[in-house]
């Protein structure tokens, strides 16, 4: 899957990066930490400048657990339902 390598690299280094970059957004490409930024847009602009329009990972460094997103109407196939 796209960004699998980057996500694994982030997970491996998260505890280490919490020491220096907590609350910041890191930009990761392949197995390289490119930089840490105050917001997502700054990280995105930097990624575009460095790598062009290619996949790269932007993720906030935080102690909180990984988010799990839910959208039950879609995953349960209810959008087309009618009474």
């Amino acid at each position, binding site marked *: *899957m796209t960004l699998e390598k980057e996500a694994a690299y982030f997970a491996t280094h998260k505890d280490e990066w919490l020491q220096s970059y907590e609350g910041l957004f890191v930009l990761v490409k392949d197995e390289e930490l490119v930089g840490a930024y105050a917001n997502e847009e700054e990280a995105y*602009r930097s990624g575009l400048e460095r790598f062009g329009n290619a996949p790269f990972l932007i993720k906030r460094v935080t102690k909180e657990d990984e988010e*799990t*997103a*839910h959208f*039950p*109407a*879609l995953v349960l196939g209810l959008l087309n339902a009618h009474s």
Partner: protein
Amino acid sequence: MPIHNRFFLRPKREHEASPEGLASAGPLLQVQVEVPAAFAAYLAKKNQPVPTPGVGWALIDTGATRTCVDNNLLNQLGMQATGTVTTGTAAGPTSQLLYPAKLSFPGARLEIDFGSVIGVNLSGQSIAGQDVVVLLGRDVLSRCILVYNGPGGLFTLAL
């Protein structure tokens, strides 16, 4: 504060509210899905054209934790993934890609530049014959006032 009101009226009796119209269609807004400002600036710098926005309907989905956009539309805009997120499904957790995107709601005079939306397959999803290309989740609603007036056949979204 941009305020969007949508009234559902009975066909041929347009002075009468249609609670059943709202119940059938749901709280839908017209939406344009565009490249984010940062990507538009990047393309301009490279003398490349900015892709034409995709249009469709956004369904306000109070059950969705985050805003989702049809990944076919994101691909048409040339967007590349900038993250992943774990999502809960009936079959267990799975991973979905995140993309930056800008959503414009012409009827509400409202634009939102998202750091990331979830790319999902919404092809074939329709409500009352209308294609849904965006599920507007609680990440946006956390900054809005939403009034759903079922008996009155109307809803109001204010940001």
